[in-house]
């Protein structure tokens, strides 16, 4: 029941019920039509086998194809493991930055640093990847600079390898790691850290026993979002990794757009979703957090 201030006549009760329905309707339409039904439709499609032109049967052929073709599941495993690596790197690189912004910077610089962190957040993936291409390609800024400085004597191609893809991905998702970390660390009372030192802890034990456990919701939230964004990313691996980047979303795109094999594409989509959800679920279980107190709070 809606809790509106005010009387309780029959009219009032009807009013509340009506308001409740009116408020629930947009939510229900949104979730049902744009999230639940599309996914059911996708599952249905993925379980369809083409037995003859325009003749379909129920079956697991698309999933069997996936299992029988090592390229497919290798790609998924590769995407997953690289995403985990990117998530770990983002956390390692981002945590000190977040700690500096939240705890070490003076009040004035804190706001400015956080703002600088936020601004690239609003720049499209495409532009960020484009920037990296301009820096890293054979005729790019870094290669030119190295030649000018006399360190190398011929152009170097930095693009189209896994290291570049990982750098690009870490760059792309970094801000989604830092923002939740800063907001949890910001809520942490400085005296907790001081008490930690006061009770005889050294830098490492204070970090491990006090700061990290306190920041756990932020860490988990950042990791979930970062992992999800990485595993689901398309532009950065394609543009920085080139044709051979073997990213799973590229397989989905190929099935859908190039081969027009929607059944297989849908099956791949479900597999990616299952895979990322499983990893996120495992992460939540291992860290003892829930979706509601991590992602929903950031």
């Amino acid at each position, binding site marked *: 029941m809606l809790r509106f201030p005010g009387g309780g006549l029959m009219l009032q009760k009807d009013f509340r019920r009506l308001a409740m329905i009116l408020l629930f309707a947009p939510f229900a339409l949104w979730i049902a039509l744009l999230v639940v039904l599309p996914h059911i439709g996708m599952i249905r499609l993925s379980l369809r086998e083409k037995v003859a032109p325009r003749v379909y049967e129920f079956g697991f052929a698309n999933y069997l194809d996936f299992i029988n073709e090592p390229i497919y599941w290798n790609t998924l495993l590769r995407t997953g493991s690289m995403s985990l690596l990117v998530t770990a790197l983002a956390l390692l690189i981002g945590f000190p930055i977040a700690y500096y912004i939240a705890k070490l910077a003076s009040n004035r610089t804190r706001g400015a640093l956080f703002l600088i962190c936020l601004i690239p957040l609003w720049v499209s993936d495409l532009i960020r990847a*484009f920037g990296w291409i301009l820096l890293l390609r054979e005729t790019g800024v870094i290669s030119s600079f190295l030649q000018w400085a006399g360190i190398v004597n011929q152009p170097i191609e930095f693009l189209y390898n896994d290291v570049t893809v990982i750098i690009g991905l870490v760059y792309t998702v970094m801000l989604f790691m830092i923002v939740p970390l800063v907001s949890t660390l910001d809520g942490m009372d400085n005296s907790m850290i001081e008490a930690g030192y006061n009770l005889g802890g050294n830098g490492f034990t204070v970090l491990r026993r006090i700061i990290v456990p306190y920041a756990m919701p932020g860490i988990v939230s950042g990791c979930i979002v970062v992992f999800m964004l990485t595993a689901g990313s398309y532009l950065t691996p394609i543009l920085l990794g080139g044709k051979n980047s073997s990213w799973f979303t590229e397989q989905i795109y190929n099935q859908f757009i190039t081969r027009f094999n929607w059944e297989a594409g849908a099956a791949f989509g479900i597999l990616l979703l299952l895979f990322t959800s499983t990893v996120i679920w495992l992460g939540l279980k291992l860290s003892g957090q829930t979706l509601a107190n991590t992602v929903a709070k950031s």
Partner: protein
Amino acid sequence: MLAQNRSTPFLWGFRLYVAVFFVFLASPLIAAGAFAFNDSLFPALPWQGFTLDWFFNDTEPKLGMFHDRRLLRGLYYSFVIAVTVSALSVFVGTTNAFLFVRGRFPAKNFFYIVMVIPLVIPGVILGISILVLASDTANYLENNLDLELEFLRPGIFLVVLGQFSFITTITSLVITARLKKFDETMEEAALNLGASRARVLRTITLPFLRPAMIAAGIVAFLVSFENFNTTLFLVGSEAPLTITMYDRMAKVGSTPVLNAVSFFLMVGSGLLALLSILVQRDKSSR
């Protein structure tokens, strides 16, 4: 502050690390923006001198972005899509905020998690799932009822739906956080002073939510404008700007006009982001 018992070299090392990090953050953006002003046919060194041709020149081969009709069309479609998505998602975000802050119904926590889930579904999957459902529906209607519904085929309508499906989660979270801070006795006070319920909503509650609604709208606009993954599968002939740029990059290769667009977008979104922060610092938020 908190480093009083750590050595100064440590702190300086820390600062150096932070500085290097911000160089890392800024360099691709600077590269993307700076070459817009290089008087060269390629976005690469050496520097050939300053020019604004990539913005304003009206002849090939240095066709500026403000004379490139395909880019301008992309910009226009992006704008239309972003405005629609942010209007819709702010509306639903506001009703969701009221639903979850004021409503009492069974399984509320479950539904709240359901509300958050679209944010953790990969954008590609949201895109294809909506494409599949829309196409299935369109095919069904065409085969069985002989009804041709053009808007269910890839195009602006589906792009709007696809982006709306996850951006609404963002706006809902922003507006819910603000509504939670609202002191409900304010509504009772207004009611007590003789205001009708509609008037209370109009003069008290919505003005309180306004900064959050504007900020959520700006965030929604920017996220919609830059979205690529979901849009990619739903786009029809009216391609928004990111898709147009991607096509250009894939087909023509990089040209400085893309740097000009990048610069334009960075400045535009920077200003909007700043605006959203200023709005949230509004005096009534205290």
